[in-house]
């Protein structure tokens, strides 16, 4: 067990530094954009570190797709698999969903 701050706490500290102290100094819009991208990257890392062990079903699903092709019966499981990735990478994406899961 490592000493505190833990890995997610360290990521959070860097994100807060970027957001509160670095971002306000950015005048060039490209640099501002890249700082926001960096903050987004830290957000992804933080969510992933905070996650309980997620089942890694990508390989199993891939075998199914290769065996069965574009079988509509595979769609619900594929969507669940991708939705789990989105909850880490961009949880807001699912809120804007047009059709529901």
């Amino acid at each position, binding site marked *: 067990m490592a000493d505190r701050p833990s890995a997610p706490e360290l990521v959070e500290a860097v994100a807060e530094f970027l957001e509160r102290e670095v971002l306000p100094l950015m005048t060039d819009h490209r640099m501002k954009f*890249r700082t926001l991208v960096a903050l*987004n990257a830290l957000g992804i890392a933080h969510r992933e570190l905070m996650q309980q062990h997620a089942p890694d079903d990508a390989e199993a699903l891939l075998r199914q*797709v*290769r065996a069965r092709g574009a079988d509509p019966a595979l769609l619900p499981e594929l969507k669940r698999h991708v939705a789990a990735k*989105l909850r*880490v990478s961009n949880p807001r994406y699912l809120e804007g969903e047009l059709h529901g899961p």
Partner: protein
Amino acid sequence: MTVPPWMAEVGDVRDAVLLPGGASKEAWAVDVNGHELLLRRAAGGVIHRFTLSLEQEFRVLEAAYEAGVKAPRPIAYYRDLGGREAFSMERVRGETIGRRIVRNPPPGLGVQLAEELARVHEIPPERVPFLTASDPLDRMEEELQGVDEPHPAIEYGIAWLRERRPEPLPDVVCHGDFRIGNVAVDEHGVVALLDWEFAHLGDPRDDLSWPLPRAWRFGAIDKHLGGVGDVEPYVERYDELTGREIAAEDLYWWEVLGNVKWAVGCLTQARRHLGGLERSVELAVLGRMSAEMEYELLDLIEHG
């Protein structure tokens, strides 16, 4: 900023600003003899596969400009500018940031985009004989294989696309990255089509459908055409000008392909960072954005 000595060949350069961005190509905003130019010059990094050389990009720009496409006026090509290949073109005004354009798109932008695209597709291929064609599905499969990571949703998309591929249309000169973000726009509409480095020969629906995927609506997801308008008037105008009759169901197929293309594109771009070709936090994050296109392509397939 001081003007680098190698720029002397370009003319009487008064001001030169290196714009932030790409590791494979530099972009300089330069003022030469009273003209505002953009200078594109090779940089140290490795250039992306499937992109044109700077010389080819310049030739395409010339052909497009001659054909009456709204594009930056090409000025000069330099085989050796301070030891590197480069070309200059007119620096156009107008907004290129997608999120800003979709906030308040000028009226009629969709129809204008159709008009420009119709002109692009009339560029005589013999004018740009170095352009090549490739099968988009084969290419996606090959690129995905190179990524070496399991992506069942993308493979599902490719399998679905293979099962119902529409009859191909004869190849035309395609812009290759025709979407909001690569078009300079002002309050009257299209100022110029930019970023010609992905030009190739291909099915005209390749370009026509590329602004449709959700990723290229920049958050304005209820406006199917690039976050700026409806698809119907855009396609109608394109059909009217080209004599083609593009079916909605074929565009639907191409929109699914567009999502596969950008999903795979994100993965390969992230590998430029991971493999050390171009270290960049922007490229790195793209590896995690692929999931958005994966979800969208499944949603499109499920709901039609």
